[in-house]
């Protein structure tokens, strides 16, 4: 199973589905599904393999290299599985849209390029795939037209800023070391001067922070998440955004190495402290902004920004525990955010694209599978014990507390508590409460949507109850970075300062539930009643809008809304306006009058002569 073959399958699948779409549209969808599932299956066979092979020599004399190791495999596996699920989900979702061939092409291309990124063994191929990912995503984000154009624009401009800064960083590596081969660089770079390392971190950091939506470089994300097709949100939010995490791991732990990276800078202004604080700010601010959102996808978008902060917090301190937490959280977040977006997507699909939280409600009765998906999704997001999010968050908190950063831990924890509020809002506004009249006849989500949701729900529980499965893989990654191995058991992590043992919790919860259920059963059976049959102090119950959603946490909103606004987003918009003005100002230079133009020519000449005569500068 060579890596070239994998990438050929990935990219070839993308192009072929486009062609099939043009030639015979009936087999396009099955083909896309089969190719992406096949990719996931092939990926599974790569488990535990380590290899490296140059696949192309034609680029400016730089060999392009593919390599795989545990880190790459871990990300690749997640990408391919989530990609396959997203493709399955898309089957019905985009069926009736325009330009579906284009959609599939870009979706599969984005997936394939992500695989390319994680398998890239040198920076050129890394960058190439990175850019392919950027523009294919740009085209997909803009796919919905209308407001999506602005979102796509934001995304691509920030992406270009990121890639530009990465380009500078990577080429400065090339200029100094004469190679872009990651394995070679990881031997050479650690001996560089601190200043240079900081320079590298800043440049690469900008690129990865933009992709990972770390504040203050997050502005593209909420709009991009909200406006892109919901079926693509899975890919976008699950792994694509987290390529920034992969990048951070790559630059911090693979290239520079923990030994140098963690002691860079003076005192509390160490590089990783600053990174961690940015992560913490990201968590708190975006959590509270998420609380204020009334658009399901905007809410999830802001939530995803905040979750990105957890991952950064996890990896910032370079302990094996935190690293495991950060990487595991990346995976977990991918699983539940994809699930949540799919659930929103299913609702949108059935309600005609409705994603305004204030207009929905009561869909639990019509779309139970989507509800279960959403419930498990938010459980993971909150980190309820026995769901996957709990384990990774536990690891992160524990790192922060034990490393003596209670303020960061506070930020992380308060993020979680805020998260409960918006998660409840999300579930309550869409699925609970009163079912509006117009959605009375809404059908269940089609099977192609239910299937991925069910799978992901099971994954959430699986990783929550048996976290050892992924943690063992992650532990291998950590040891490959040179950290000491964790004591991972199938049920959790054992250590002196607080052990995690999910089986105990699991047993306790099951026992408690059984007991409570028995007690409950002891009483008389509850009578199911209709929706309208509620206590209204004798007043008539209106047919519609008897569902309290608008300004749900009103007192809280009033308290926090002056302080938690997307100031940076506003600033970016202002910046764009200023740029526009400056550009308009500059072009006034071209007045249209020939006399001026000739004057410019003479001026240029006279200036050069004058300078040389006066100062003999040249």
């Amino acid at each position: 199973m060579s890596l070239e073959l994998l990438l050929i399958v990935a990219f070839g699948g993308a192009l072929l589905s486009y062609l099939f779409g043009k030639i015979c549209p009936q087999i396009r969808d099955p083909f896309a599904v089969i190719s992406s599932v096949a990719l996931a299956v092939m990926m599974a066979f790569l488990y535990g393999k380590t290899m490296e092979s140059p696949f192309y020599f034609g680029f400016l004399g730089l060999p392009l290299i593919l390599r795989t190791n545990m880190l790459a495999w871990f990300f690749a596996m997640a990408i391919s599985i989530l990609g396959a699920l997203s493709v399955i989900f898309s089957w019905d979702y985009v069926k009736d849209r325009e330009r579906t061939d284009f959609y599939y092409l870009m979706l599969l291309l984005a997936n394939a390029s992500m695989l390319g990124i994680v398998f890239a063994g040198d920076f050129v191929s890394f960058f190439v795939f990175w850019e392919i990912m950027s523009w294919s995503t740009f085209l997909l984000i803009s796919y919905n037209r209308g407001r999506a154009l602005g979102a796509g624009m934001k995304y691509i401009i920030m992406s270009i800023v990121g890639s530009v800064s990465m380009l500078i960083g990577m080429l400065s590596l090339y200029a100094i070391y004469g190679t872009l081969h990651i394995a070679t660089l990881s031997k050479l770079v650690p001996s560089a001067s601190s200043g240079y390392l900081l320079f590298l971190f800043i440049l690469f950091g900008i690129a990865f922070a933009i992709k990972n939506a770390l504040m203050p470089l997050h502005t593209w994300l909420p709009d991009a998440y909200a406006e892109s097709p919901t079926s693509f949100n899975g890919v976008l939010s699950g792994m694509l955004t987290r390529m920034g995490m992969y990048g951070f791991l790559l630059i911090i732990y693979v290239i520079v190495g923990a030994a140098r990276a963690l002691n860079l800078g003076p005192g509390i202004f160490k590089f990783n402290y600053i990174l961690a604080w940015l992560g913490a700010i990201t968590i708190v601010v975006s959590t509270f902004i998420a609380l204020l959102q009334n658009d399901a996808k905007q809410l999830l978008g802001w939530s995803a920004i905040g979750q990105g902060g957890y991952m950064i917090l996890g990896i910032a301190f370079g302990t094996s525990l935190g690293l495991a937490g950060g990487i595991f959280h990346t995976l977990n977040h991918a699983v539940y955010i994809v699930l949540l977006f799919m659930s929103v997507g299913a609702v949108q699909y059935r309600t005609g694209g409705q994603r305004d939280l204030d207009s929905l409600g009561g869909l639990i009765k019509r779309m139970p599978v989507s509800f279960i998906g959403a419930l498990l999704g938010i459980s993971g997001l909150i980190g309820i014990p026995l769901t996957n999010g709990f384990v990774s968050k536990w690891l992160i908190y524990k790192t922060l507390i034990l490393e003596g950063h209670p303020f960061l831990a506070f930020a992380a924890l308060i993020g979680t508590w805020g998260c409960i509020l918006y998660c409840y809002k999300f579930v309550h506004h869409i699925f609970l409460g009163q079912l509006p009249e117009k959605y009375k006849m809404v059908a269940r989500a089609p099977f192609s949507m239910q299937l991925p949701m069910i799978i992901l729900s099971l994954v959430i529980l699986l990783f929550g109850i048996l976290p050892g499965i992924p943690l063992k893989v992650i532990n291998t990654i950590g040891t490959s970075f040179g950290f000491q191995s964790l004591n991972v058991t199938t049920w959790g992590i054992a250590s002196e300062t607080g052990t995690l043992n999910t089986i105990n919790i699991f047993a306790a919860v099951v026992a408690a539930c059984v007991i409570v259920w028995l007690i409950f059963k002891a009483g008389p059976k509850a009578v199911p009643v209709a929706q309208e049959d509620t206590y209204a102090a004798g007043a008539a119950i209106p047919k519609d809008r008897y569902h309290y959603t608008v300004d749900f946490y009103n007192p809280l909103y009033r308290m926090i809304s002056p302080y938690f606004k997307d100031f940076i987003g506003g600033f970016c918009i202002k910046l764009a306006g200023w740029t526009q003005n400056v550009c308009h100002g500059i072009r006034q230079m071209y007045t249209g009058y020939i006399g001026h133009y000739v004057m410019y020519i003479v001026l240029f000449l006279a200036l050069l002569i004058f300078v040389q005569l006066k100062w003999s500068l040249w």
Partner: protein
Amino acid sequence: MRAIISLFLISVLAWGIATALNEIPFGAAKTKVGEYYIGRGKEQTGASNIVTSVVVNYRGFDTLGEVTVLFVAAIGLGAVLATRRKKEKRDVEPASLVLYTGCRLLFPLILLFGAYIFIHGHLTPGGGFQGGAVVASAFVLVYLGCRGRRISETASKTVESLGGLVFIVVGLVGLAVGGGYFLSNYLPKGELNSLFSAGIIPIIYIAIGFKVGSELAGVIDHLVEESE
């Protein structure tokens, strides 16, 4: 205001150029290249007019370009003014008989003079361009004196093309027979100071003369037509 700025800028330019000119004393130039041409031009090209030998032979490629520039200008002018060509003919008042006859009388004479100039380009001051300009002046005279007369566009085009082609072909033949050099003077040089001397120079100058004459005539034709 602009005038002041302009004056200032120009004075800076003047300052710079004056400084540069210090190194080029007037009237003292005797360059290696010029010396070479004067010294060896006679034998190498067979033309007694060294300027001509420089123009057509040593720097013949420039001249090819120069011809092309004029050609470009003529076509460009035609292209620019082309869209207004299709105008209904306006009645023009005919010139007086004296003028008319005088023009018709002078026309061949001027043509002949022009031809003389370009045919003797390698011997006397003058050459293809000068001769061509004289030829064109004959057409100006016709336009002014015999209003309504036009040269045939096809004919002038053909002459232009042929003139240019002769230049190129003469040059290309050099690749084959003249030692592999473009525009090399492969024809017999003849005796200095005689009409049939200087190899390809007279041929090229004749071609240029025809070409320039017809081009300038064409330019004038276009401009006259436009201004009517």
